């Protein structure tokens, strides 16, 4: 099993989840989990400085989506030749919208604002480090769900 592209932001086992941090004072949840290292709760009504790690919901609703048809500049690790990819911003029940690439094999035609999506983990095109992706649900490609989950 490859290492994650960034340490501590998501789990890579079966049913992977993003890892948030929750303020123990006001219960506000943050992602990415960089708030504990920063040291201060960003809620203006809270002086909290202690946080606990919490798994975020795996499923949410698509806030919006697009794709990248031009190669992004470095440090994006683009394969040669460049492979376009779709992007989705998914709103989790916690009220956090999280960006990610869409699972390989899916494009904007598989997405819709308000549709369900689920967190999966896939190797990056270059280097093979694991990265979280959004898998569109109920898009007609559901048969691929099993394959994605196997990774």
């Amino acid at each position, binding site marked *: 099993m490859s290492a994650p592209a960034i340490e501590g932001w998501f789990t890579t086992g079966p049913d992977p989840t993003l890892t948030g941090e929750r303020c123990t004072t006001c219960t506000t949840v943050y992602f*990415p989990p*960089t708030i504990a290292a920063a040291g201060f709760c960003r809620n*203006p009504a809270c002086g909290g400085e202690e946080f606990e790690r919490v798994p975020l919901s795996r499923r949410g609703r698509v806030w919006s989506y697009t794709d990248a048809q031009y190669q992004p500049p470095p440090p994006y690790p683009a394969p040669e030749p460049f492979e376009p990819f779709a992007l989705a911003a998914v709103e989790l029940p916690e009220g956090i919208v999280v960006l990610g690439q869409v699972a390989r094999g899916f494009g904007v035609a598989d997405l819709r604002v308000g549709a369900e999506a689920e967190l999966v983990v896939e190797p990056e095109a270059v280097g093979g480090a694991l990265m979280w992706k959004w898998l569109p649900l109920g898009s007609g490609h559901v048969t691929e769900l099993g394959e994605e989950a196997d990774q």
Partner: protein
Amino acid sequence: MSTAHPRGVAVAGVGMHPWGKWGRSFVQYGVHAARQALGDAGVPWTDVDLVVGGETVRNGYAGYVAGSTFAQALGWNGARIATSYAACATGAQALDTARARILAGLCEVALVVGADTTPKGFLAPNAGERWDDPDWLRFRLVGMTNPAYFAMYARRRMDLYGATPEDFAQVKVKNSRHGLANPNARYRKQVSVADVLASAVVSDPLHLLDICATSDGAAAVVLVSDDYARRHGLDEAVRMSAVSTVTPTFPNTVLDMPLLSTDASGGHEPAHTFKESLAVAAYEEAGIGPEDVDVAEVYDLSTALELDWIEDLGLCKRGEAESLLRAGETTIGGRMPVNPSGGLACFGEAVPAQALAQVCELTWQLRGQAEGRQVEGARVGITANQGLFGHGSAVVLVR
């Protein structure tokens, strides 16, 4: 805050260096714009007692100390200096610094200058391994370019309000027409809907011609105290009655460049989005409302974003900007002309100069000097822009 005679400062003069790719130093552009503005005001450089420069982050040390750089280039005259950085709102924050010092009675004549020399292509993050820099991480982990954010906002308009790629193209068509006669615009060519739709898709649904370029350019504004204006026959000058540079309020629940996520809504949406709050604060400070606005210059980083801004400024209800556009209301001659300068569509973005360029355009509009693109009878104008990391601005000018 609003009084019968709203507090403000006089816009004595404005000037620009034409936008383009000229291959020269940002200092040359800035000095050109500064001299244009001083000439326009009829104010001698020796009267300037404050220079505020808009910082440019990609022109080395001179760019980091832009206020000093421009002051020295114009010839040290003993003025105070300041340098502002607020991403795309840099120019407005520089204006705010100048205005505050004038209103505090600490300065009479302020020269505000922003200039940039830009690279080609996508704006990329700083080099190196920067695992604690969100602007670096969004490229490394997700491949999220600026146009991809613009495309997400555009797609929401399509799925939620029924906007079409043709609507977005129409914004470009309108702005390209507006900019035809603007001597400072970089692109002065009428573009058709077919041209836009035939250009390559960058990030679905946005085509290359939906997205603004990056440009070299410079803009400058001379602000003076009421006292100075009276003594020098500038009583009739356009007035700057609001400069809003408020930050977002927590939780910020709209996905924002360059972040990978939003704050948690905690189950309730804030009363105003960040972009709405920029306008709300500007209207409150100026003592006016959206119904008073005659003309707007908004930050059309993409065509679809112009439609968002029209609603963020309260110029129509949420989801109705396409109807306004289709009815021709946002074109010159319509009820609510937007981007008569041609906007970023015709200029391309020169970050530290852009918010100042918006103020230049509205000043010309309110004076009736916008030749070939005049909004007849315009008395009240508002600008709007948003940049990275909680920066944004809205400026109100009145005559």
